Structure formats: C-alpha cells, structure tokens
C-alpha cells in the first residue's frame, strides 16, 4: 500500500471469528514502535508506519508471524436499534436489489431487517461503519459509476457488504433505504464521537416500506 503503509489481508472467510482476531491484531499493532495507525477493514488491517524508522519487510514478517497467535476475544459491543424507511427516493435501488434476488421489494426489506448486523470496521466516512451479516440473497454488485448521494443515513448494499452512509458524496453502492430519524454520524466534540463502533450490533426496525 505505497511508501508508508501495508495492507494485511487475513486468509479465510469474512466471519465474526476472523474479524475478532483482526480487532485484536489492530490493538496490538497500534502499540508497536514506528506505527502511526492501524485501522481494521473487512477481514483486513491497514497499517500506516513511519517510513523513516520502520522497515516494511520486517513489519510484514512480524504481522504474518503474530497472526496465528492472535485470539478472537469477543468485543463488548452495544445493541443499537435504528428505524429505517425502505425504498422511496432515498432507497431507489430497492427494486433493483429485489429483482436480482427474485423477491418483491417488501420481502427484500423484511429480509434485510431480519438479522442483527455486527459493525466490523470503520466506514469510508466516520460515524457508522461497515456491517456484517448480509443475507447472500441480497448480495448486489457495486454500480459501474458512483452516483451522488445528497444526504447521510442511506442504507446501502455494495457487493457482499451493507452499510449506513455517513457522508454525502459519490457512492457506487445500491441504496435500499434511509434512517427515518436523522442522526449526526460523527461529531468530534461529542462523547462518543461516532454513533457506531466496531463490535456493536445493529438492528434495523422497519418504519415503512415505500414501493
């Protein structure tokens, strides 16, 4: 990952056991000398180091050797319930996702809201994060060209992942709904700054389904 970062990609499936080990690895690596940041992704870890003081080959070797010994200690996450309006203007890809799954938009929304998701990693903008637990029937590839999302709180599907949009801006994910109550995803002056953290569980409550 360039001149001052490495991307550690864990072998194996995207699952909770593997991800707990990623979180544990992140905590360990953050304390190593010469490390600026260690940020968990979806079964991977971005490690940013001081290029002057850290040898990337030695760091790579250390990451690989320690991975087998990292334990999957459970995180003490909270359960956060979020009300959602599925479909409508802010979830205009619900029909597309439903068609791919061979279901009606209503069935699609009910399936999406039927599981508790686990926050696996910080998102592309601060506040919510990437969620794990999407039913494989709802897997939908990202769009060819990102489209502009004008507000936060969009519930979307990108490939095998689902998330809540934390910032307005271009996104290649398929929007299937939005939070019915606006939430400020991130405020550095609030305690805690983010609505969701890795390890938290998210339950979507169907507020409405707009066909």
């Amino acid at each position, binding site marked *: *990952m360039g001149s001052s970062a490495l991307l550690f*990609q864990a072998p194996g499936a995207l699952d909770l056991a593997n991800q707990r080990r990623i979180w544990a690895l992140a905590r360990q690596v953050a304390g190593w000398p010469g490390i600026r940041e*260690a940020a968990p992704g979806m079964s991977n870890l971005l490690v940013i180091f001081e290029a002057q003081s850290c040898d990337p080959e030695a760091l790579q070797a250390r990451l690989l050797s320690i991975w087998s010994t990292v334990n999957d200690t459970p995180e003490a996450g909270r359960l956060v319930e979020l009300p959602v309006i599925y479909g409508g203007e802010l979830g205009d890809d619900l029909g597309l996702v439903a068609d791919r799954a061979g279901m009606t938009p209503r069935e699609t929304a009910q399936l999406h809201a039927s599981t508790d998701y686990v926050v696996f990693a910080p998102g592309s903008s601060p506040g919510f994060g990437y969620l794990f637990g999407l039913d494989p029937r709802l897997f939908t590839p990202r769009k060819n060209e990102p489209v502009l999302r004008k507000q936060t709180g969009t519930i979307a599907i990108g490939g095998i992942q689902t998330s809540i949009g934390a910032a307005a801006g271009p996104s290649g994910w398929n929007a299937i709904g939005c939070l019915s109550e606006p939430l400020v995803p991130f405020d550095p002056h609030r305690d805690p700054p983010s609505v969701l953290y890795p390890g938290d569980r998210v339950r979507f409550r169907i507020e409405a389904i707009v066909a």
Partner: protein
Amino acid sequence: MIEIVQTPPLNSVQDLGRYGARHYGVGTSGAMDDVALSTGNLLLGNPAGAAGIEIQMFPFQVKFRSDVAMAITGADCRAELDGTLLPPWWSTNARAGQSLVLQAPATGARSYLTIAGGVDVPVVLGSRSTCLRIGYGGHRGRALEAGDRLVCGPDSQARQPQGGIGAEPPEAALAAAAADGAGDETVLRVVPAAEHDAFPAPSRCAFWQEAWTVSAQSNRMGFRLMGTPLHLDQPLEIRSSGIVPGIVQVPPSGQPIIQLRDANSAGGYPKIGVVIDADLWRLGQARPGAKLRFVSVTQQQAAEVQRETEAYLSQVAELARLCRREARR
C-alpha cells in the same frame, strides 16, 4: 493576528494531517503540497507541521493586524505586500496594517501562507487540518471566509532578517523520476498495490506507459483521470479496507481515481498502485488538464526518495537558522 479580507471558497487551514483517528473512519486531511507547507514553516523557524493557510482559489487577500513574520511558498502567486512584489518561496516580516494579495498562479495549483508561531486554531483529534468534506477541524470546521480572524501561535515573536529569507523551490532541488515523457508531464513514482497483478497485460501496459489527464472532477478528495480505460478480465469481490492518500483505484468505468487528502478513509475498488508519499506534493500542484505519467518503484526506492525530501527540508531549516543568527550579530 491576521484577517481574511477577500477569499473565494475552498481555501482552508491545514497542517501535515491527522493521524491516530482512523478507528473512527477519520482520514488524514492536511496540506495537498506538504513540502511547500513544511518549507514555509521551516523558513520561519516553526516546526515543519505548524498549521498554515492553503490557498487554491484566487485572488486571496489578508490584512495583518499585528507585526508577524510570514512566508509564501508553493505555486508562484505573485504575492504583493502593500504593493511590493515578493519573490516566490520567500519569507519576510509583515507589519500591522499591511495587506498581502495573492493572484492566480500561472503554473501550479496551490500556494501556502505560513506565519511565525503557526495558525492557532483548536487541535481536533490530533490535528489543526480542516476536513472540508465532513466539516471539522481548521477554522470552525469550514473553508475561510472574508472577515475571519486567525490568531498566531505563541512563538509569533520570531523576526526574519532585513530583506527576508528564501528557499530553493523543491521542483528545482528534488529530482523528479526520470521518464521519456514530454517536459510538461508530471512524473509520479508508484508502488504497485494489491490488485495490480489481477489486471490483464494490456491494462497494466496502459497504466504504466500512457499519459493520464487530470479531469475537471478533481479536488482535495481526489483526482479522476482520463485515458485508456483499465479493465479486469472479470470483476473481483474486494473486501473494503482502509485506504491512504495517493492510492490509485480503478472503478468499473476503467477511469482511475487517485484518492487524496480529504478522500474517504476506506474503500473497496481494485487498487492498482499507490503514489509514494514523497511525490504527493507534485500532485498537489497538478491542475485539471495536467498530464501525469506513472513509473514503478519498490518501497525501498520510495524510502530513498523520502530521505532526499527530508534532506532538502533539513537544509532549508539550517540555512534559515544561519541567516537569522547572522542577522542578529
């Protein structure tokens, strides 16, 4: 204190970036031309990473409300202090009441105004940089506006010698990567990234051998490039990961995007390479329409370029220190 008299949108307070808040999904922000910001600070005897003003829209005008030493670095913006033209890459003393006017540069994209003691805005999550995309840090989490008043840091008593101190511009001092390209191309050193080898040979050849044009959809978040589209033989399902400034992602359209200082902190598009940190300043000075060319380097070669950049900055700091000492005798 300095007061902003005139500014178009998108000029902001920046330092060398925000590190240590990525577990929130917080990206780095920071100066697009980190070498120019550092050079300005070092001319003044500041730490390299003190906060300054990044000016990317012109004309820009400030009025000094107190005596303070200041420096102008980056793109040559024909800066005038009360009507007197200052040389580019120059630092001098401004007196209370004087006005500084910066005009749109003929080449380059961004100029930096640094002041002795640095711009003293609150530190948010370890940095004074403004994240324009989300709206925190810097001066009230936003771009500068006419009427804003910025306070100088506690060490603002430093004075430059009569006549001022200049620095050799990094484009003269720091060798660009050798390439066969035309003279007006910006050549960038790139370390291949995780999905590089997944691209078929024709796409890899196009990436490394052709010139890429910076599109009009380019800003502090990232540059969209125009050229021969790059395509995978079949789509890859990529798990989202943290990303860094300089990463070159290839969305399904095949037109690469270089993510920069205000980019998303994570993403899932295929990554073909990452522009090395020591060449990011060259991108910070590239305008829409500029031609880019990529050359492949290893992390070891990147570290060597980083050392050259550090040596250049140390030399600037040392010469400025000697000039100030000489002047005090």
